[in-house]
């Protein structure tokens, strides 16, 4: 292709993309078909199609999972609305970037000792809280200590158990010491609980009135109704293009979609998958369908019959038709899992051969385990995932072909996490996206983890986990994670049938960069300061 022809093609594609006739994915595949490399195509997209961000406007977002019990206590954050707001009015030491990498936020740089037992974070000197107070090492230490120690009520406590001490080194440097090497510590700092808050004189933090150092400050917060925010002029970073943010808590999927269609809001955080295709037809609306690391797991107690036999577990893993579940339960907004808890958009994802539905193989493993047929009970509740019970019923139909009889038990929504999960031998669980394999494995697959939901004990896996934790060499680390994924694929106690997408929608006049983060809804909760009005 000649140079001239090529540039005309690019112009045409850019026009198509600007008018919304083709989306980024199509643009990229045309670009690659036209002989460009992926990175050139990506560059073209950002330089030609997405115009420079403009400032101004009030960004109104319909957010789901809002409650009248919405709290500003960072240790108790749990609902989606709380996590979203936390990213708007508060800031973290580090962030997950739009490309799902690790980037600076209130810390500008960080470095580790060779054994990864001592981390030094340099803090941003320009950062300030909404009341104008400068952000210093004292605040960072108090904010992290809130999630440590015997008195802490924080749900993030298990993340920081390895931390032995946090010290200040001058006003803008903190040094974190750990009892064991921990290469992922900067990633952990993006956890939604670990917001930076102003310290009181006694080393505690002040979370009650919604203080923070985020891009926007709260003007008016009505729990479960709405939150109004306005730009924090002293914010330490680029972005925050909107003048004002209005978050409206819309729990009913229909109300959310209607509000978007009638123009009462500019974007919504979650779309009802059943009507996704109808919403796509609306010309004013753009869907953001983002593959995420949020997984469904079906843990089986490996120390309890019949799951104590690896062949039984394999039989159950082969007896599920993942493709059909993605199609029928998620309406295409997800991807099949491969029985290890690392998704393709997480770092260190190994390309292991996808396990597919195979009733014959399931029957074979069942026989090797010494069963001619199998009866198991699977507990689920629809509060975990809308359609959870349906998915289990579909699974039980798949498994019948292999001579496995799965009795699906619908458990009460209330108290599912305290009475069913970790208590019953075979359950349905949904996990939010975690930034790194180490984070996920340490939480739910390590032999002595409080949440080792399948009671899986694998000496080699645990040995590798500890090694990889302290390994700063990327190549060696990747190899370790590959082996660990293979181990959970072959021997592990959890069936991981699917990864769930984040599906949001926005009015076409709301623009964002070439890619968006998949850590949380709405660009990892950071669309509020990354996006803009065309």
């Amino acid at each position, binding site marked *: 292709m000649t140079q001239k022809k090529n540039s005309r093609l690019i112009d045409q594609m850019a026009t198509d993309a600007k008018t919304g006739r083709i989306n980024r994915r199509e643009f990229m595949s045309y670009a690659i078909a036209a002989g460009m490399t992926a990175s050139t195509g990506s560059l073209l997209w950002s330089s030609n199609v997405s115009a420079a961000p403009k400032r101004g406007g009030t960004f109104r977002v319909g957010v789901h999972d809002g409650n009248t019990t*919405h709290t500003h206590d960072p240790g108790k954050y749990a609902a989606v609305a709380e996590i979203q707001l936390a990213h708007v009015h508060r800031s973290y030491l580090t962030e997950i970037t739009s490309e799902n990498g690790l980037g600076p936020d209130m810390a500008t740089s960080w470095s580790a000792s060779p054994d990864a037992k001592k981390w030094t974070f340099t803090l941003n000197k320009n950062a300030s809280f909404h009341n104008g107070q400068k952000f210093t090492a004292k605040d960072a230490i108090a904010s992290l200590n809130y999630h440590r120690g*015997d008195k802490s009520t924080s749900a993030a406590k298990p993340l920081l158990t390895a931390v032995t001490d946090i010290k200040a080194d001058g006003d803008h440097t903190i040094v974190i010491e750990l009892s064991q090497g921990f290469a992922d510590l900067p990633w952990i700092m993006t956890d939604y609980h670990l917001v930076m808050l102003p310290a009181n004189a006694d080393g505690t933090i002040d979370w009650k009135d919604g203080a923070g150092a985020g891009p926007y400050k709260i003007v008016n917060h009505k729990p479960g109704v709405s939150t109004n925010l306005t730009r924090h002029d002293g914010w330490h970073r680029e972005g925050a293009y909107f003048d004002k943010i209005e978050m409206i808590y819309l729990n009913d999927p229909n109300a959310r979609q209607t509000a978007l269609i009638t123009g009462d809001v500019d974007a919504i955080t979650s779309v009802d998958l059943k009507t996704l295709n109808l919403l796509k037809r609306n010309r004013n609306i753009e869907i953001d369908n983002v593959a995420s690391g949020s997984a469904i797991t079906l843990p089986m107690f490996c120390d309890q019959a019949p799951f104590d036999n690896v062949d039984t577990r394999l039989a159950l893993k082969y007896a599920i038709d993942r493709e059909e579940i993605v199609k029928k339960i998620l309406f295409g907004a997800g991807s099949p899992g491969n029985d290890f808890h690392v998704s393709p958009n997480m770092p260190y994802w190994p390309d292991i051969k996808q396990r597919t539905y195979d009733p014959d193989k399931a029957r074979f493993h069942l026989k090797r385990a010494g069963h001619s047929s199998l009866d198991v009970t699977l507990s689920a509740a629809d509060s975990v995932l809308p359609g959870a019970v349906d998915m289990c019923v579909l699974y039980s139909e798949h498994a019948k072909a292999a001579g496995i009889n799965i009795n699906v038990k619908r458990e009460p929504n209330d108290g599912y996490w305290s009475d069913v999960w970790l208590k019953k031998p075979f359950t349905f669980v949904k996990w939010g996206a975690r930034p790194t394999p180490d984070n996920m494995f340490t939480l739910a697959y390590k032999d002595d983890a409080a949440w080792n939901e399948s009671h899986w004990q694998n000496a080699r896996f645990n040995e590798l986990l500890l090694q990889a934790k302290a390994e700063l060499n990327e190549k060696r680390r990747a190899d370790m994670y590959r082996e660990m994924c293979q181990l959970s694929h072959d021997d592990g106690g959890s069936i991981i049938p699917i990864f769930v997408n984040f599906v949001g929608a926005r009015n076409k006049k709301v623009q964002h960069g070439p890619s968006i983060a998949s850590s949380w809804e709405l660009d990892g909760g950071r669309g509020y300061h990354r996006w803009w009005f065309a």
Partner: protein
Amino acid sequence: MGDILNIVIKRLGLGLLTLLVISVIIFGAVELLPGDIAEAVLGQGATKENVAAMREQLGLDRSAPVRYFEWLGGAVTGDFGNSLVSQKPVSEAIGERFSNTLFLAVYAAFIAVPIAIFLGILVALYRNTVFDRVANILTLTSISAPEFFLAYVLILFFSVKWGMFPAIAKIDADMTLLDKLERTFLPALTMVLVVVAHMMRMTRASIINLLASPYVEMARLKGVPAWKVIVKHTLPNAWAPIINVVALNLAYLITGVVLVEVVFVYPGIGQMLVDSVTKRDFPVVQACCLIFAATFILLNLAADIGAILTNPRLRHPK
């Protein structure tokens, strides 16, 4: 009139006693629910240590009677305690939401009650005609359809297709009354559709009941026109049951609107009660339930007083 005052005082006293009993029942019911606030708030993130720490901070490690009487001690002096989740006073959390609920209920009642009684009189007048049948079928259909379904149908036509009214009934304290009325028209209309049938049919039934009485026959023989027979002769005697049903429906407008609140995202008290029960936030649950109970007690009292006032025989007992 002194007798009525007597009745009111007596009934209010009994009402307070009822509230006390209800508060015990609610406390017991919340205690019986599996899990407590620490487990509910921490959810998947609950560990033994942080649950124990939170229980200690909130004083949940003390025995149930101790906690109840502590709450009661505050409540009699008008202090309903702090929300366990937000740590803010309950009155602050509930105040605005309850006034929103009241606003919507009054709005709906202002439309529903006159329509229901007027329709009731009309269908009694034209009983067993096509008009009677159609009015009955329509109102019975609207009462039989689930509220959220009615709400969705209204949203589909009035806001998505015709764009006449907003689908989200989000209101602020600083809006003008007219804005508020426009914003909340669809939820109010939904509630009107739900309550009209009951009141209309009761009006119709109690009027028709009386039409067989000798004094009505007398009036007819005298040559009084049919509408006058109903409005002037039967209606005054039919008020008692109608007032009762109206009171019942008014109470429903306040206590039974959670679904409407959810669909229209209306910041009322129902949603707050549901959220607080899920989180086991006892002081808020208690306050919401007591408000609901007091609503029923007061409206029942009002209905009885109304029945007495409209009936001379009860007004002047021997």
